[in-house]
């Protein structure tokens, strides 16, 4: 491999000191990933996974490592209060755990929820599988630097057969600081056999800032486990977020994800799921709505590796102004994964000249007893529908907003948490392009 070109971004990320845990396997993994990051550098658009997301502008910037003042930053609690997410809450400000803002004292039985740093001190062994991974794929740069540098995050474990009724709220605040910061968060989540959990992951801004955040989450659902995951990404307009979540679903496990991607300057969401056990099921619903000069890239890869597994995916994109929305939805059915049923729909609205949508649904099928289908469209609001509304006295702007909202609503329709659903719908409407 050729020597990667050095850039201010690469230099500043490599400059950060590696955290030392004193746990051999962890320090070794951090070192390994750090070396891999240093050796390969950042991907350019020739790397297939980054074809539509150029990092050139980002590589010219440098970020200070971590936030020493994170504990003292003033964050208005009302910012992150979410209707329908009133259970235990964990709050991170610029990647640093804030005990004063979190509420994890009275946890329901069967739920273990603590900062990763604490979990590592108490009992690191159960985290070994997730945290000793090496990221070897081309283009894994941000996962590598996260694995090397993240020293905190969320450790969440639900005991076998525990049904956690209250939603858990994970909050990641990007707070204004004197410098642009780079921070890394690592989440490890495990839902035990037959257990269930609702999780709300929430990214938001407190003041203007242009930080670079990376987040890597490993989510394991044991046999028969259920998880409802809602992701609300409403980061600052200038913020950069590189997020990767990897789901592993065992037999009869069922995970649903509702994602609303609204904020950020450059946002990349790598979403991976492995359906490892028979009859596992993964349902995703998402909206990405970049405007201004935002760039939101969602890369989803679902692997059906067992019998009678099901995945459904419904994604909507709306790009306006000079924004760019990128979507990849790859479905793989492994040899022998008979009875797999996979469907994916990605519809996009392109609302202005200068905006761009790039979409790439993929099917890779290695078994024959399967049903697999995908559809993707890029277009604009239906003229006839617009005419219908306008002929009934609804002004153009409102008519467009109505239709755009309706276009996105399908994604939220089956979110069972009603209060949260209503709130997200309101947010969506507020966020509609003018």
């Amino acid at each position: 491999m050729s020597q990667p070109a050095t850039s201010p971004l690469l230099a500043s990320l490599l400059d950060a000191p590696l955290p030392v845990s004193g746990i051999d396997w962890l320090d070794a993994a951090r070192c390994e990933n750090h070396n891999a990051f240093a050796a390969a550098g950042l991907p350019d658009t020739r790397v297939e996974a980054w074809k539509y997301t150029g990092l050139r502008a980002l590589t010219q910037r440098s970020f200070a490592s971590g936030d020493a003042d994170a504990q003292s930053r003033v964050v208005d609690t009302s910012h992150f209060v979410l209707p329908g997410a009133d259970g235990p809450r964990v709050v991170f400000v610029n990647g640093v755990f804030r005990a004063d803002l979190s509420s994890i004292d009275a946890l329901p039985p069967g739920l273990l929820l603590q900062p990763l740093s604490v979990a590592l001190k108490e009992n690191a062994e159960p985290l070994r599988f997730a945290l000793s991974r090496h990221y070897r794929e081309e283009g894994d740069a941000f996962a590598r630097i996260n694995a090397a540098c993240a020293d905190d995050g969320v450790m969440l474990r639900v005991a076998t057969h525990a049904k956690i009724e209250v939603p858990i709220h994970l909050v990641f605040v990007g707070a204004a600081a004197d410098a642009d910061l780079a921070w890394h968060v690592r989440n490890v989540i495990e839902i035990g056999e037959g257990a269930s959990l609702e999780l709300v992951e929430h990214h938001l801004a407190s003041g203007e800032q242009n930080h670079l955040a990376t987040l890597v989450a490993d989510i394991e659902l044991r046999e028969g486990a259920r998880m409802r995951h809602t992701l609300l990404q409403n980061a600052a307009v200038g913020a950069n977020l590189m997020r990767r979540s990897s789901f592993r679903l065992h037999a009869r496990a069922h995970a649903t994800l509702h994602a609303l991607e609204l904020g950020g300057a450059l946002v990349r969401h790598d979403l991976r799921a492995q359906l490892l056990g028979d009859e596992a099921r993964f349902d995703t619903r998402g909206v990405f709505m970049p405007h201004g000069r935002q760039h939101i890239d969602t890369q989803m890869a679902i692997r059906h590796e067992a019998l009678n597994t099901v995945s459904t995916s419904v994604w909507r994109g709306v790009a306006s102004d000079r924004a760019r929305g990128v979507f990849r939805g790859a479905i793989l059915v492994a040899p022998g994964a008979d009875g797999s049923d996979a469907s994916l729909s990605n519809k996009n609205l392109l609302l202005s000249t200068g905006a761009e949508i790039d979409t790439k649904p993929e099917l890779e099928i290695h078994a024959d007893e399967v049903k697999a289908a995908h559809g993707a469209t890029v277009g604009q609001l239906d003229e006839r529908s617009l005419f219908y509304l306008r002929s009934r006295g609804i002004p153009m702007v409102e008519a467009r907003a109505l239709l755009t909202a309706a276009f996105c609503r399908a994604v939220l329709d089956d979110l069972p948490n009603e209060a949260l659903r209503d709130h997200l719908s309101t947010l969506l409407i507020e966020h509609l392009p003018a």
Partner: protein
Amino acid sequence: MNNDTVIQETNIALRDNAEVAAALGRSYAAGFVTDIEMTSLPPGLSEDIIRQLSAIKQEPEWMTEWRLDAYRHWLTMPMPDWAKLKIAPIDYQALSYYAAPKAGPKSLDEVDPALLEAYEKLGVPLHERARLAGVAVDAVFDSVSVGTTFRKELAAAGVLFCSMSEAIREYPDIVRKYLGSVVPTGDNYFAALNSAVFSDGSFVFIPKGVRCPMELSTYFRINAQNTGQFERTLIVAEEGSHVSYLEGCTAPRRDENQLHAAVVELVALEKAQIKYSTVQNWYPGDENGVGGIYNFVTKRGDCRGDDSKISWTQVETGSAVTWKYPSVILRGDRSVGEFYSVALTHHHQQADTGTKMIHIGKHTKSKIVSKGISAGRSSNSYRGLVKMENGAEGARNYTQCDSLLIGKKCGAHTFPYMEVKNPTAIVEHEATTSKISDDQMFYCRARGISEENAVSMIVDGFCKQVFRELPMEFAVEAKKLLEVSLEGAVG
């Protein structure tokens, strides 16, 4: 069954035609065949070899330079590895880039019985079999004079149709103007290689306002057998003209060359229409994946003029490895691009094929219908790009990709790329993958249709949308071809 009657009738018609043609074709029209030097070049690739090749073909200086430029560019390029193909390394220095045509078997008795059996199944007329099997030209009724008859008619219409080598000598201005203007010499690895060492191919020029009086086919061209492994085809349709071109043949052909890297360029000027149909049935290798042709093709059409139209139709059943993406650049306003494809892979065949539709002009339209059938241990991928550039006001694309799986060990993949920069453009893509359903099979079997026939019927229905686009006799042959290619896929 109805279909069988149609096939029989068509075959009889074809045979009758061929008999008439044969009767006409007893005399050998000297002077029509391009002079073929009985020289061979030693294996290897270098500037010297290219100069010699160019000299043997009596090419002008500019052509030699053009080849050398391409070669120098090729040297700087890496072999592409993005396709979903497993390709054993190719030693380009071990290939011979010019070989005098070999004398084929002297009579049908010397031809591989397996090949004859395939002809039998396809219903290829007897004397055709000899020609296809490469039996020495003077031992069979060649289509020489058939070709000459056609040439007279074409000449009357002002259509130029000849081999590329001939065109370079006879019509250098036209060739120079258009060659490499759609697929530049450095376009991709295989196109660069082809530009450096292309052996021969077809050249078609339809002047302004002319509707080509017949469907053109390499079949009518005498030296078509020797186009070699690096075929180069150029079709130019001037303002308001119209041409339909058929490439290939349903009958299997044995070929000494393992590597084929062809380039086809189409240019459609204002209101011109080009329809290009291909049936590719090169040797796919045996059941164990040994042998077989590597088919790396760059095909691209350029709708340069307003209201022009380019349509690609392909039936791909042969070759061990296929790497092919016939594309259309929709430059002219209201221009139309179409791609209809059936790709069938069996045993250990691998195909990575699809199309690109680049919408540049206003109100341009494209339609993609791709049907992939995988059987045995094969791998079949559709890879396509639909791109709406900023100026593609009101452009429209519709894509449909369906894959059919026959067997547990094969793979069917779909990789569509959609890039949209214009807010008034509409792009739609749909894809499905499934196997032949048990219900369908049960229905057919319950009505006394054998398993093999049922599969072939269902596959035929699956491909109908594409077959409809083929010229009639091609369509009938294509159906038959799928049947033969799928033999042994069931049970």
